[in-house]
């Protein structure tokens, strides 16, 4: 096996990188892929919480890099999916504890044992971001349909082009179809038009995402959740399937019976 290294980046904070890493990791692992997620947000770790693995951390990324433990010892197996692993970030250090070449070495060591390595990038475009993209074969840029998130995504895509990291793919998160319809939110077309890169996922706004994150139970395992389905679709597209984008405009039965628009 030779894993593909996937980094999820956004520039702006709070657009949903960590939630996406957890859900795409879960979705891929639920399809029989071997997945290792790495939290590169050293000092502000969250991925362990979203995956519900917080209480199992013994060693972390910095311990591996500084040689205090073997790589295997820092890999936490998910409690639901045996093919999903997490390498957590250190909470007591900062971004300068890791360098881009450390990340390349770490991923090279992981590659033979997995299908996917998914790296959660910190917000910003400084050292932490450069660490996160150093080993990436492919970068997914995440944005929300608002002007500042799109502006930052544009900057990140520009930096990736400058670093010759190949064409980025775009995920639009927290789309609210009703607001788009009213003209109060940028539409998928507006965002895609400006950023001009391949679109790989559209995730609708969904309150249950927050609930799931707090509980440490990723939504991708919930077949009733639209956001969960969107993450499943991204994982299938990553595996090379052609999946059409979900129809987010469709109304449910009740709305149709009430004749709402």
């Amino acid at each position, binding site marked *: 096996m030779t894993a593909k290294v996937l980094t999820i980046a956004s520039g702006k904070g709070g657009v949903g990188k960590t939630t996406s890493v957890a859900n795409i990791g879960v979705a891929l692992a639920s399809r029989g892929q071997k997945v290792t997620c790495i939290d590169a947000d050293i000092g502000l770790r969250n991925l362990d919480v979203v995956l519900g693995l917080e209480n199992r951390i013994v060693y972390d990324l910095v311990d591996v890099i500084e040689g205090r433990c073997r790589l295997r010892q820092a890999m936490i197996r998910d409690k639901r999916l045996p093919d999903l692993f997490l390498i957590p970030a250190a909470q007591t250090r900062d971004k*300068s504890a890791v*360098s*881009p*070449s450390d990340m390349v070495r770490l991923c090279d060591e992981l590659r033979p044992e997995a299908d996917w390595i998914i790296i959660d990038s910190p917000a910003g475009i400084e*050292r932490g971001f*450069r660490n996160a993209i*150093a080993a990436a074969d492919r970068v997914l840029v995440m944005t929300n349909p608002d002007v500042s998130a799109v*502006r*930052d995504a*544009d*900057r990140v*895509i*520009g*930096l990736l*082009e*400058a*670093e*010759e990291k190949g064409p980025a793919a775009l995920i639009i998160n927290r789309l609210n179809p009703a607001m788009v319809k009213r003209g109060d939110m940028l539409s998928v077309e507006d965002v895609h038009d*400006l950023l*001009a890169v391949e679109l790989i996922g559209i995730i609708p706004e969904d309150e249950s995402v927050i609930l799931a994150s707090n509980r440490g139970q990723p939504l991708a395992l919930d077949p009733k959740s639209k956001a969960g389905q969107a993450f499943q679709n991204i994982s299938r597209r990553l595996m090379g399937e052609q999946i059409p984008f979900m129809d987010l405009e469709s109304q449910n039965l009740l709305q149709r019976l009430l004749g709402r628009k």
Partner: protein
Amino acid sequence: MDETSSLIQIKGIRDGLLITLSGTAWPDLVSAFVKNVDERSSFFHGARVALNVGANELRVAELSSLRDQLSERGIALWAVLSESPVTETTAQNLGLATRLSKPHPVQAREPAEELPEDAAKWVKGPLRSGGRVLFEGNVVVMGDVNPGAEIIAGGSVIVWGRLRGVVHAGAQGDEKAVVCALELAPTQLRIAGEIAVSPKKHGKSQPEVACLKDGQLVAEPWQELTGR
């Protein structure tokens, strides 16, 4: 001392250290430099460094690898000076400065002696947020100029795409400079000393030309002009 000291010169400047690497065998030069840094790590740690690489033509991979090696040693590389235009472009792509002091665009500088009047810089778009083009002649962009991007030209600016960033034409005082774009909606538009922002537009956009008329910045549809 030894031969490496003749290749590597270190000078203190206002913004940190200016290090000149002379020689053309880039890999050797880098390893000599890194070795030099390792030998005196306490001196270099935490330094802000501007690097003069002379005529070396450097690509993204070479420059970013050096930047990463330096940052691992606690050194921040903020500028790369070079005689090679390839290296300058690379440095700009990586977000590094290519001059020690930021030249003020409106400052009346001596026009470059050898720049012919019709010289233009060709930029392949899209020019994204954070991208910056600074050129003493005309600038032609093939693609969109996104919000957050900046073009400063001594002459005119032509954008074959949507212009939504900041553009300054005639930055050295040329009032005959024009700005044209397939969709002219810049965050801010400057020609010579005049500044304007785009009015909110309704309806379908069309190609437009902006120029200075009697000291006023005006934008006109392209069709009307070609009818003249």
